[in-house]
């Protein structure tokens, strides 16, 4: 009865937020209202939503995984490796790449110099 699989929310993109029937209202908007707003009565009661708060954690992930748009803004910020602890590795990699790049640029410059030297050799052979 209580296998983990039965607790998996059946989120089906597209189907779960589609509007249907006589209500033109989006299911997401309805869920938000009936789960998050309206009169809450505590106390002498058989069941209320607060009692099943445990399970609504998953629902809350869907309904309000972010408190405000600001937090959402912070979210991408926080996950940006350039601005988090992960940037140490990236900066290190960047330094290595720059070193390689400089080496390659130097190598290329040498090749160019050699080519130029060869070209300038061809028209007038008076050097040799």
């Amino acid at each position: 009865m209580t296998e983990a699989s039965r607790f998996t929310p059946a989120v089906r993109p597209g189907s779960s937020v589609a509007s249907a029937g006589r209500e033109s209202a989006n299911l997401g908007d309805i869920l938000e209202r009936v789960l998050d707003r309206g009169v809450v009565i505590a106390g002498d009661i058989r069941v209320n939503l607060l009692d099943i708060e445990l399970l609504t954690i998953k629902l809350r992930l869907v309904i309000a995984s972010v408190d405000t748009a600001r937090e959402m803004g912070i979210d991408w910020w926080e996950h940006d490796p350039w601005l988090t602890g992960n940037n140490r590795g990236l900066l290190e990699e960047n330094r290595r790449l720059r070193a390689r790049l400089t080496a390659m640029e130097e190598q290329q410059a040498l090749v160019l110099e050699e080519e130029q030297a060869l070209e300038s050799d061809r028209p007038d052979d008076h050097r040799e």
Partner: protein
Amino acid sequence: MITVNDKGTYLYAVTLDTDLACPEGLAGVAGAEVRAIRHAGLVAYVSTVPLEQFGAEPLRESMEDLDWLGETARAHHRVVEAVAEGKPTAPVRLVTVYSDDEQIRGLLSRRHDDFVEVLSRIADRQEWGVKAYVDLASAPPSEERATGAGGPGAAYLRRRQESIRGREEAWRQAAARAERIHDALSSFAIASRRHRAQDPQLSGRKELMILNGAYLVEHDRGEEFTRLVEELRGPGVDLEITGPWAPYSFTDLADPAEPEVLGDG
């Protein structure tokens, strides 16, 4: 004897007891018939529900099933809307289940004054929802300068930081814009609430929701309100209006002065 409590009374909404007949033939959650409990000048709209489905334990599982939840939420909402069509209505949170009708009568007596206060506040008024979205991904990229000193690596790093700053700036502008829209709508409305922004999974849109507002508006000024929303539309911000709704966002009951007495039935 043991199975005497295998049914509960599911509460959808509370209204004042007026001459208006309650909606008939209305199906509620799990297809249960909706009936009215009249008491102390108030009416509670309820259904009798099996506790094997609406007890705390089974709900803990079925609430995880978004299909079941969606169906139940729609049924609950349908009852609230049908009741609210006729008179000021205080919608009750989903899955509010009492042991029996007697407990509901107890609630109506005990919280009578609070319900009357809330219902007078929302009389002849409706809730409108307004959501604003911005697409930060399409925010104009910051000026890319030609590769400067420090080589290509440094230029890349600089570009990257500029694009992050550009996004931050775009976000700041969007937030300020949301503030202005909310202010304009609030000054028109009787009351307003800013709710948490919806997750893209819920909104069904990939853009960032910067405003999720609810506005309580006089019944006969709905058209004016929708026109105002139209006027606030502008490039870069998409406004979405929903409603009119039963006043879900404006029916908070005052906290009871003392903890409610248990087991008065």
